[in-house]
């Protein structure tokens, strides 16, 4: 497993979806329990708009539904989504390490057990969004994507693309673990850089473990596969960029 001085991860997420939704009361209880750790709270509201048209008259009915909460840590680095149908822990850069990130999830999962008891799950998701920032000189804004990624699109040399996006889906990459990979060019937040996105979304939807230990074990397994896929989709030029000293 490679560790980098400038890991390109801009966001990491662990998401668990439930077969049986949480009640509004359970969502409130869980949010209250986790508030000391995630003090910044924003309710998540869904808006349903219905349009009735008859005899040339249009009536609209709006219905607001409370979906759950978005809770954040003081520094906005970690975010927790508690919805009636899912819980998700999201980590913004700088990414600490897997153990720290997984520990955050374990805390949330244990709080869920304490407040709501056993809940049958329907999906485990592990997502890592990476951005490769490539320095470019003032004179050129062209980069060769294949210098940095081993996946993408192939096109004639005379076509100078302004941007692209491609996505790939492998339903059973390893056992019951599926993978969706998306890569695209994105506007760089840094001047004189070009940026490429590499988004890995691993998921399990069949033969799901239901006990906590099994879920953690599956997440560890997904993480190994995520790293393996990541290393196979980047080139040494990308590795060199991630290993530059921070000055």
């Amino acid at each position: 497993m490679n560790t980098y001085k400038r890991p390109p991860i801009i966001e990491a997420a662990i998401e668990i979806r439930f077969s049986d939704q949480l009640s509004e009361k359970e969502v409130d209880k869980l949010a209250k329990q986790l508030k000391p750790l995630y003090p910044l709270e924003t309710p998540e509201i869904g808006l349903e708009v219905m349009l009735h048209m008859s005899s040339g008259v249009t009536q609209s009915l709006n219905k607001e539904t409370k979906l759950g909460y978005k809770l954040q840590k003081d520094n906005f680095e970690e975010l927790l989504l508690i919805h009636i149908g899912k819980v998700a822990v999201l980590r913004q850069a700088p990414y600490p390490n897997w153990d720290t990130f997984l520990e955050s999830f374990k805390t949330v999962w244990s709080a869920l057990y304490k407040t709501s008891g056993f809940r049958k799950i329907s999906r485990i998701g592990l997502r890592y969004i990476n951005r490769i920032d490539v320095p470019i000189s003032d004179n050129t804004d062209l980069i060769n994507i294949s210098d940095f990624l081993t996946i993408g699109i192939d096109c004639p040399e005379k076509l100078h693309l302004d941007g692209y996006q491609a996505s790939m889906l492998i339903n059973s990459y390893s056992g019951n673990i599926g993978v969706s990979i998306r890569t695209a060019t994105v506007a760089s937040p840094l001047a004189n850089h070009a940026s490429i996105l590499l988004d890995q979304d691993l998921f399990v939807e069949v033969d799901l473990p239901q006990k906590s230990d099994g879920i953690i074990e599956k997440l560890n397994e997904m993480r190994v596969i995520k790293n393996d896929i990541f290393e196979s989709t980047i080139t040494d030029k990308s590795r060199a960029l991630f290993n530059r000293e921070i000055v």
Partner: protein
Amino acid sequence: MTQFFYQSKNDKKESAKVGTMDFFGTISSVSNETKKYYQENDWTSAIQNSFQEWFDEQSLFNNKGELKILISKIAMHMKEDFRKDLFVQIDELLSEENFTEDDNLISVDSFAGFLMFFGLVPKIKTPSLTVTHEGNIATSWLDETVRLHVEFLPNRLFRTAVSRRDLGEKELLGHQGSIKSLETFLVRNQLHKVYANE
């Protein structure tokens, strides 16, 4: 008719007051006890103030979040201390205690411009951040003799002013341009040492 719930912020022991008020602020459908309370207190202003306080807190919170998340998007390129220093300064500029009605929220577009500049000069020294009347972020660096002030305008533009501290802050140089040309301008004018580490 709109129903309001109001709790006196200054006196936590004060019981909650519930009443209804029409759009013109006329109180009706309240108990005599409550009516007496409202007659003795400025009910409309209290609601407006309470709403304004909530609105300000929410706006400050949202603005802090937007800026910190923007920083996090390039956090892998920053030294931890530099990032933390920026976080501290954002917290100070947008703190509920320090924020007055003359202050402005920070333009996300302007702040993104400052972070773009970081891409040009990764060895940048931690600047002192201020907010202009237009809500733009402005950065200042000082050395023994020079004060360098750069305001990051929307649309990736900048405005800079250089003054000599030993000549009573006499302005020597002013310039406006696109962020991509900022470093060239600063290097050409031998200001590199003021804002960047060797």
